[in-house]
């Protein structure tokens, strides 16, 4: 009997009820006997509920039959039955885990009142019941159990605000449940049964106006409980005011129950799927827009929560419409678990941090563990890898793509982007160190539930990856390496640097050793090049918390990106790269704000790529990158993907993130961003160009447009660089402009065009690496970034000057260094293609480039040195070492470009037949020829001859080295370098002439977009006037609208 009690009751799903109710009823008695025992019973029951759910789910996953629990010993539909299948089990387990962790978080409040303990317990049981029951009226009971327990727990704090919010909540949900009851009874009237399966199988009996209205009553009621826009103000008020413990349970638990109820009843709602989709989609998008205006932490979580439930509902309905029932577990399940753990974690975190306004979250800026948790949760919510939401969104978007539902894709991605905007703005506030704010104090164990939730998220995400037939080790290696390095983050800087370099070298080698062709080329550039530049990070030996782990993640995810053979792996690594580089930018003092723009544009870019992959999948049904070329609509796929990559490269019009991010990132990391990370976009562009761009049926247009975008980027990048005072911004704009040429080169879709693009890519890596590392040295020594505050540094930093000069000559395209070859090939390729206008602009922009290049050298190194800079030393050797390597490479390639061109050509040959014709050392094209070694020799010669002459003359002359200020200055001797160093507003006249071209229109445009979406947000939220009656009215209107929309008054 006792054994039977365990095997037949307690270990069965029924045990959940028995445990919760039994314990719930007895808790007051235990409490009277001994306070601690009540808590023990309480936590024990919750743990037991988790265990029961886990055991049964485990059995079902391993092939056990779905558990149908009949009550009263009578078969359904005549008695109520419960079901515990895969879905039920999953939801129940997830909810119970969240409830258990939530109880841990909530315990300090809960344990003060025995009734609170029992209410919590029974609330969780109610959710379990909503999930498991197969009876419509029983569902109502569980909804009510859940509701009443929620009401009481909300009201537990008894401050006026909470109670007011609670009252609104009660009014709203009571109206909703009254609707549910009405619907239920009328369904019973028509079908004569209350068993859900029975109702579904007799669905035809629900007919006519009564059937419609009854179904809509039930449907509206459930939707209302899910808090659809705009009938959700009551929910928001509770999220905002209630204790984080109960708010989290409402957000994830109660919503989960209601959502599952909707899922169960969905077969009855076939006729209304469109309405549900519209409602859910609108809720997802609009909540996220309104979220932009919100600064109250918990209310913001409320908006996010409501939005996520909208997304879940939308996904469910769309899958239902697409007959993709098999993917429900992955998509809806993934989104569900993701939302559940992340949102609950965030609510708990909000409770721990206890700052109402997100701007005050700077109090955790010095608590890395809290920050990491916050970041992890945000990343999970947005659907960044490796979290479950990533896989779910991937699958969802792929499915939508294959059903040509691009409107929904747009909505899902736009909504996610908006959500990212406000969540990461919040993260920015939390990152911002503000010394005036008192630091947050909490015990070590307090964030433990959040940490467990985060760990579960990662584990589940990892598990989901395992089910997908992917190269999981490669995908997760960056994370693993990052985690490993994070563990040793407390060690001295030198150790960390060494460990990072070793990890990246070993990991990068392992990831890229088998690559061939273009991927192999890029692996040299990204991994070996990245490693080279990371050597320079040794020049700093401060703590730099998080820098080295993140850098390892970044570089290894770049390697994994190159290795990706499927679009999914590619996207995974892409997102990982985005996230890690974002975080790296935030590590800089002033990098937090620009990092946000960087992240948002990067995510926008990622979403374009995402949509492009979806469109490709729609056409080929394959996620192999190699199958990208077989799509039936290459123009669309190419345009979407190219748009994504161009945004990532800071294309014209979408570049506004670039200068700020580059300027404010750590100096050595800027070199990485510009020289290495930006190449990822080029890699993507080359890949899609190879797969899609060269197809004859793509039509010239997308490529031609891309060519124009590239050259406009080059032109405006150069023009804007001319007017910068900040050295890093100058080079950042220059970087943008140089990437523009590469885009144009790729867009040419010809062998020569691609060779020039790849050549320019290598070249860009070399000279931008040198430039930014030089700048790092300069900034290190002068502590300045404004060029007019420098000057004359050639005296102190001669080596840096020479390196910079060589880099600049290599960039400018002046023969004999590498830049010329790139320009020459690009120009030839443009002429061969007949893109004359683009060629003319390329000419112009490279002329403009001289302006800023000269300005950089002149105002920093030449002119008058500031008095306080008299004693500056040369840049540290470790910064110069990578530069020497790169200079050597520039020289070698300049003298003998075949060295580089042959492998480049070989990598391109599989796609386009070789058109490079070599005549000895000379490269010949249709138009002209280029004999680099000869040019090098001649230039060397004509340079050496006058030099020798002058040296000889000097021997006969008395050369007097003069002091500073010894210049012809209208017979006066200036004394202050500030007066004589012509540097500020260097090109004022140029500004007067064509400055109107570079007024920040793009910035103004994006500011207007921000402004506009905020305005939209504030006009969308006018419905939330705080009045409970208005909220109730909206619920009524909601129902009325549903009826009218579905023709309920038609007959």
């Amino acid at each position, binding site marked *: *009997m006792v054994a*039977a*009690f365990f095997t*037949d*009751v307690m270990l069965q799903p*029924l045990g959940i009820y*028995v445990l919760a*109710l*039994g314990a*719930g*009823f007895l808790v*007051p*008695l235990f409490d*009277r006997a001994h306070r601690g025992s009540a808590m023990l019973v309480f936590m024990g029951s919750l743990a037991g509920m988790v265990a029961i759910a886990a055991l049964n789910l485990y059995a079902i996953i391993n092939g056990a039959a779905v558990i149908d*629990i*009949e*009550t*009263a*010993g*009578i078969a359904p*539909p*005549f*008695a*109520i039955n*419960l079901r515990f299948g895969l879905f039920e089990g999953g939801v129940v387990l997830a909810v119970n885990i969240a409830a258990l962790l939530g109880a841990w978080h909530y315990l300090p409040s809960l344990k003060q*009142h*025995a*009734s*609170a303990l*029992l*209410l919590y317990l*029974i609330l969780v049981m109610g959710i379990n019941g909503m999930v498991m029951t197969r*009876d419509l*009226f*029983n569902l109502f*009971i*569980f909804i*009510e*159990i859940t509701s*009443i*327990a929620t*009401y*009481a*727990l909300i*009201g*537990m704090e*008894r401050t006026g605000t909470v109670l007011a919010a609670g009252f609104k909540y009660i009014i709203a949900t009571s109206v909703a449940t009254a609707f549910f009851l009405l619907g239920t009874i009328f369904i*019973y*009237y028509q079908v*004569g*049964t*209350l068993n859900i399966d029975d109702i579904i199988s007799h669905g035809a009996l629900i007919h006519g*106006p*009564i059937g419609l*209205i009854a179904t809509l009553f039930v449907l509206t009621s459930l939707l209302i409980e899910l808090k659809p826009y705009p009938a959700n103000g009551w929910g928001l008020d509770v999220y905002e005011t209630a204790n984080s413990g109960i708010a989290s349970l409402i957000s994830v638990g109660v919503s989960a129950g209601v959502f599952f109820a909707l899922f169960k009843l969905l077969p009855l709602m076939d006729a209304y799927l469109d309405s549900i989709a519209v409602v859910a989609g609108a809720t997802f998008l609009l909540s996220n827009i309104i979220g932009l205006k919100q600064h109250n932490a918990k209310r913001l979580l409320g908006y996010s929560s409501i939005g996520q439930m909208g997304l879940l509902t939308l996904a469910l309905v769309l899958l239902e419409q697409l007959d993709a029932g098999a993917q429900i577990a992955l998509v809806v399940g993934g989104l569900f678990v993701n939302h559940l753990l992340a949102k609950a974690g965030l609510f708990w975190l909000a409770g721990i941090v206890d700052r109402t306004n997100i701007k005050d979250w700077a109090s955790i800026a010095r608590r890395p563990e809290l920050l990491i948790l916050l970041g992890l949760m945000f990343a999970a919510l947005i659907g960044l890898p490796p979290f479950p939401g990533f896989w779910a969104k991937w699958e969802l978007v792929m499915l939508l793509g294959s059903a040509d539902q691009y409107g929904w894709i747009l909505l899902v991605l736009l909504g996610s982007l908006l959500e990212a905007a406000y969540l990461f703005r919040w993260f920015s506030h939390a990152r911002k160190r503000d010394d005036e704010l008192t630091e947050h104090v909490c015990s070590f164990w307090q964030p433990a539930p959040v940490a467990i939730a985060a760990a579960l998220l990662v584990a589940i995400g990892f598990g989901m990856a395992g089910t997908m037939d992917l190269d999981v080790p490669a995908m997760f290696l960056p994370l693993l390496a990052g985690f490993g390095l994070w563990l040793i983050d407390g060690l001295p800087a030198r150790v960390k640097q060494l460990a990072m370099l070793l990890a990246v070298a070993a990991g990068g080698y392992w990831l890229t050793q088998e690559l061939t062709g273009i991927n192999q080329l890029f692996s040299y550039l990204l991994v070996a090049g990245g490693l080279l530049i990371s050597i320079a990070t040794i020049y700093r030996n401060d703590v730099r918390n998080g820098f080295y782990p993140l850098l390892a993640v970044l570089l290894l995810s770049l390697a994994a990106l190159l290795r990706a053979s499927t679009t999914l792996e590619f996207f995974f690594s892409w997102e990982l790269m985005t996230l890690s580089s974002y975080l790296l930018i935030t590590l800089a003092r002033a990098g937090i704000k620009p990092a946000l723009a960087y992240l948002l544009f990067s995510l926008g870019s990622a979403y374009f790529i995402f949509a492009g992959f979806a469109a490709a999948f729609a056409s080929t049904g394959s996620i192999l990158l190699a199958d990208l070329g077989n799509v039936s609509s290459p123009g669309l796929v190419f345009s979407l993907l190219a748009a994504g990559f161009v945004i990532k490269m800071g294309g014209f019009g979408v570049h506004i993130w670039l200068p700020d991010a580059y300027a404010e990132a750590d100096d050595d990391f800027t070199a990485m961003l510009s020289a290495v990370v930006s190449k990822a976009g080029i890699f993507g562009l080359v890949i899609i160009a190879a797969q899609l761009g060269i197809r004859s049926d793509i039509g010239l247009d997308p490529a031609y447009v891309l060519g124009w975008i590239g050259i406009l980027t080059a032109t405006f990048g150069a023009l804007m660089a001319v007017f910068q005072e900040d050295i890093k911004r100058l080079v950042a704009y220059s970087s943008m402009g140089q990437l523009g040429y590469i885009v144009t080169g790729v867009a040419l879709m010809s062998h020569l065009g691609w060779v020039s693009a790849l050549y320019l890519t290598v070249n860009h890596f070399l000279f931008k690496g040198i430039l930014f590392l030089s700048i790092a040295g300069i900034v290190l020594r002068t502590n300045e970034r404004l060029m007019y505050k420098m000057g004359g540094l050639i005296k102190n930093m001669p080596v840096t000057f020479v390196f910079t000069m060589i880099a600049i000559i290599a960039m400018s395209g002046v023969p004999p260094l590498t830049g010329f070859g790139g320009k020459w090939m690009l120009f030839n390729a443009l002429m061969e293609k007949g893109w004359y206008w683009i060629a003319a602009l390329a000419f112009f922009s490279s002329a403009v480039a001289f302006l800023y290049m000269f300005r950089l050298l002149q105002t920093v190194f030449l002119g008058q040195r500031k008095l306080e800079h008299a004693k500056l030393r040369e840049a540290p050797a470790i910064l110069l070492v990578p530069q020497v390597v790169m200079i050597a490479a520039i020289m070698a390639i300049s003298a003998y470009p075949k060295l580089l061109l042959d492998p480049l050509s070989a990598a391109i040959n599989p796609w386009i037949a070789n058109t490079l014709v070599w005549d000895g050392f000379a490269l010949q094209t249709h138009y002209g020829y280029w004999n680099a070694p000869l040019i090098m020799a001649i230039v060397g010669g004509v340079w050496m001859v006058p030099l020798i002459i002058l040296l000889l003359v000097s021997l006969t002359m008395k050369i007097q080295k003069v002091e500073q200020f010894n210049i012809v200055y209208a017979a006066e001797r200036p004394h202050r370098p500030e007066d004589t160093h012509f540097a500020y507003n260097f090109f004022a006249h140029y500004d007067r002439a064509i400055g109107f071209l570079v007024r920040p229109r793009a910035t103004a445009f994006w500011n207007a977009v921000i402004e506009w979406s905020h305005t939209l947000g504030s006009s969308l939220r006018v419905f939330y006037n705080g009045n409970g009656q208005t909220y109730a009215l909206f619920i009524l*209107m909601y*129902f*009325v609208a549903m009826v009218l929309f579905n023709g*309920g*008054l038609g007959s």
Partner: protein
Amino acid sequence: MIKRLFILMMLAVMAVIFLNLAGNYRENTELSRLGHYYAENGPQELGAPNLVTAVVVTYRGLDTLGEVTVLFISAAGVGLLLRRTRRKQDDEDLEQGDRAEETAGVHKPASEIVETATELLLPMVILFGIYVFLNGHLSPGGGFQGGAIIASGTMFLLLALPESHISRLMIAVIESLSGFSYVVVGVLGVLLAGGFLDNRIIDPGTYGALFSAGAIPLIYVFVGLKVGFELSAVLDRFRKEDTGPL
């Protein structure tokens, strides 16, 4: 004003929807499938003449357990909301004058008629309540009804003797134990009979007798006690919401 008009309009549309419901409603001329089954098989299966009781306690026993739970948590919720606050904390909310008014207004003695009537009626009311829930399986009524009647007795008591003390401990013990026993009976259903809350764990006995219909009377006793005491507790809470621990 515009808001009112708008509400009126909405309600008018609701009214049209309801008219649509009513207009399409045809009174049933025969039992629903479910009802038919219960009417035909209920008495034999469960041995309870009162079909409503059979449905409530056994066929839809889970509902009833849930219902008991609802009542339990509402009582707990009311208790939680109306729990006594420490005076110090209260001072922040209330002004001095309010407090004086509050304490002065309460506990007005009841009239003699009420007091006398209560003394006369109270035992009978309680007895009647017990009768109702014991006979739930035979005649109209049942645990809830009986419990409600008992609670109305408490109501009498509270009206007549506002100062009377109701033992919180007793209430807590009874409601906890009866609720727990209900669950135990339900579990016994799994172990001894067909399933959770199966009332056939006890021999059904003679059809129509007081001690028949298996565990139904037993369950109704628990439900009756629980409902009676819980409602009493709620009433007590509302009477003097600011005093006494749970």
